[in-house]
């Protein structure tokens, strides 16, 4: 009962923060505890960022660290510490609203949220939709503490293997990108951050717009002209 109360209190808090109203709901009788929200909203014209408008020369930024799926698996295995779990929870409980506002303020051309297909799955979708190639710098990826360790220990979620299998010939890794880091890049994210495509100079404006609000803005790659598959390169 305490868990149920915590879930509802957490939902009420984040709905208030997001400026949303809860107007209905239903319950399921199921062995596994689950909770979800369906969001409907109205967006003004010109305020929508799709994944279709990335252009060669643009900069790619990521607004949350990767590794929530791995951390959840490590928690199930009772190998993640309370510090690891709290850090992952804090990021999963952070809305993308501030990052989305900063994206619009900094002239972002394209964006996508990183969820079940992992960074590389959503990146590949952006590359196809925009008909460009994306190049990631593996040394600059923001990662949750422990994520690489969980990956190397074999705590990789099933979804990460499904993502890897689907993207096998669509993503190319340089030799210096080890298997654990590849796993993190395929890791399905719960409430992941935004992958935002900014014009040259946009990252500084984005950071300034984000201001003191808790969030991250890490330049993780760049957009280049399309050269067919593999469309996504990790260097």
């Amino acid at each position, binding site marked *: 009962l305490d868990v149920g109360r915590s879930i509802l209190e957490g939902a009420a808090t984040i709905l208030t923060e997001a400026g949303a109203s809860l107007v209905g709901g239903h319950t399921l009788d199921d062995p596994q505890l689950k909770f979800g929200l369906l969001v409907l909203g109205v967006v003004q014209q010109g305020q929508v960022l799709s994944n279709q408008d990335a252009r060669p020369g643009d900069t790619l930024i990521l607004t949350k660290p990767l590794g929530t799926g791995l951390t959840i698996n490590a928690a199930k295995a009772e190998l993640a510490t309370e510090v690891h779990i709290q850090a992952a929870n804090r990021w999963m409980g952070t809305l993308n609203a501030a990052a989305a506002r900063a994206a619009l303020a900094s002239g972002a051309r394209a964006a996508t949220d990183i969820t079940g297909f992992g960074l590389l799955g959503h990146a590949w979708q952006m590359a196809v939709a925009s008909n460009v190639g994306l190049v990631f710098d593996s040394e600059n990826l923001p990662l949750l503490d422990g994520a690489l360790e969980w990956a*190397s220990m074999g*705590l990789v979620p*099933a979804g990460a293997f499904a993502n890897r299998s689907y993207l096998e010939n669509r993503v190319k890794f340089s030799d210096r990108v080890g298997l654990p880091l590849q796993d993190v890049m395929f890791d399905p994210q719960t409430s992941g951050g935004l992958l935002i495509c900014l014009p040259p100079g946009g990252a500084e404006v984005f950071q300034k717009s984000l201001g003191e609000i808790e969030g991250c803005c890490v330049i993780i790659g760049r957009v280049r002209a399309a050269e067919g598959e593999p469309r996504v390169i990790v260097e």
Partner: protein
Amino acid sequence: MTSNEVTVDAQGLACPIPVIRVKQALESMRQGRVVVLVDDPVAKENVTRLAAHLNCTLRCDPFPGGFRLTIEKPAKSGAEP
């Protein structure tokens, strides 16, 4: 068969349980062999990663409905008891 051989039947178990069971088996011995039966390709991949992480060698053979993974733990590895 050596005396230091343990079998972990992880068939029907979802990750991360197979990895946890194999990790416990490897940590319970100073050196020896752990034979793992898995029927899930995800478990096979994850156990393979664990073996490499613990500096153990692994051989994968087909097994009816899955895979038979033979892990050899040398005298000195990353999985000390």
